[in-house]
């Protein structure tokens, strides 16, 4: 049986990914800080969820020992946190946590798993970045920084690992209907317009099978990404009006 390792698998997008890959017959190992959510996923899926705080290097070292012995066919770096507000209004500790979870942990895990030779031949390594990489995200400057950093890292990694036939995929989700989005948005009146995590998980699953490098899921998100890439001032203006000024 193929083996998928998914961080942040106890809720939201990670949980939907766990379901999608389990449905396709994968053995699932999740990693999450949320014990209650992890227990739920384990009941639903007969999956294993390792409890770890990805801000902690000791916890990362601990899950690395628990991952020994079973090669990984799909590794999804999904766990992510945000800190919203004007840059100077956010405590420095929160900025630090965002960098630790969103950027440092995926880099640390990737390097260690490669070194331990736990990534299978023909494996896929997947990074959940964000549409903010294209659109900008005033009011979450550090979050946006980590998500762009992740996209850059994935781009370098995809070339470094090509000789080993390891595929690297970066996903740029737009607004998705999860607790994360609810927690960090200035208003939740348009929650219904957010993409359901199950749908996103399906996009990601298909994209990985097709060995895609970049996945911008959904037509609206793709249009926003194009606008953000080729006409940054327009998207930046819109993001300022829609997000920053409503915080």
């Amino acid at each position, binding site marked *: 049986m193929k083996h998928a390792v998914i961080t942040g698998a106890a809720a939201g997008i990670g949980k939907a990914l766990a379901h999608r890959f389990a449905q396709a017959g994968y053995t699932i190992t999740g990693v999450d800080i949320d014990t209650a959510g992890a227990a739920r996923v384990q009941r639903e899926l007969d999956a294993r969820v390792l409890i770890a705080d990805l801000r902690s*290097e000791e916890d990362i070292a601990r899950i690395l020992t628990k991952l020994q012995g079973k090669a990984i066919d799909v590794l999804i770096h999904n766990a992510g946190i945000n800190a919203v507000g*004007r*840059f*100077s209004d956010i405590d*420095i500790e929160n*900025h*630090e946590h965002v*960098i630790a979870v969103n*950027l*440092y942990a995926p*880099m*640390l895990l*990737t*390097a*260690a798993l*490669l*070194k331990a030779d736990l990534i299978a031949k023909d494996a896929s390594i997947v990074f959940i970045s964000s549409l903010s*990489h294209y659109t*900008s*995200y*005033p*009011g*979450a*400057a*550090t979050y*946006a*920084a*980590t*998500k*762009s*950093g*992740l*996209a*850059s*890292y994935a*781009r*370098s*990694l*995809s*070339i*470094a*690992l*090509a000789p080993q036939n390891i595929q690297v995929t970066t996903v740029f989700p737009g607004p998705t209907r999860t607790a994360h989005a609810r927690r960090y948005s200035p208003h939740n009146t348009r929650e219904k317009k957010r993409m359901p995590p199950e749908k996103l998980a399906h996009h990601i699953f298909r994209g990985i099978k097709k060995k895609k*490098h970049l996945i911008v899921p959904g037509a609206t998100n793709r249009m926003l990404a194009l606008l953000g*890439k080729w006409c940054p001032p327009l998207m*930046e203006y819109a*993001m*300022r009006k829609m997000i*920053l000024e409503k915080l």
Partner: protein
Amino acid sequence: MQSKKTVLITGATDGIGRALAKIYRARGERLVMVGRRTLSALNDPLYTKDTYCRADLSQNDCTNRVCEFLNAQKIDAIDLAIQNAGTGYFGSIAEQSAESIRDILAVNLMAPLRLTHALIPYLRKTNGKLVLIGSITHAFPCPDYAVYAASKEALNTLGRNLKIEGDINVQIIHPGATRTGLHRKIGMDSEKTKEFPSAEKVAQKITQAIDGRRFIATIGWRNAWARFLGRYCEGIVNAMVRTT
């Protein structure tokens, strides 16, 4: 006569940072130079106990060190803060240690973020400028220094969003390859570096960019072109890097 400006430069003990410090000293500005070496090891009249602040930017307490220094010097306003200190790693991703990844993110991303956070009140007093020194590598796939390039891409995005938030005047400057000690320090073959422009020349162009108004400035037109291609012709550039 214009009054002296206060210019803070991190990573001012070597390479581009030291060259920048010399230019601003020649202009007669008041310098605050940040570095990790001891004053006695520096052994250069450029650095004195009134102009040099020793702080290891990979450590959490680096902002306290800098703020204490500013306090002791009775500096409560800064006109220009150049976040230049940087470090890297060259080699295989699988061989890179956790310490090395942590160090690069700490110096290249976390320290600028921390210092920006701490210096905003100082910069506001003068309507001063924050300059982030990036690198054109942020626009490229860099299989041999992935963490370095990612830290610079993150810095670029941080600057972009700080600008949109509009609370401070920020500028991002991307130098291209420059002849400094950096390559040797990170374990990269330094034969090739002989062809690179000198730190003095690059620093000169950086100060011109700082005097100008362009929000994102790339040093040198070839580098500007390369950066454009790296960003907008991703597929082609990836294929080119893959075959070299």
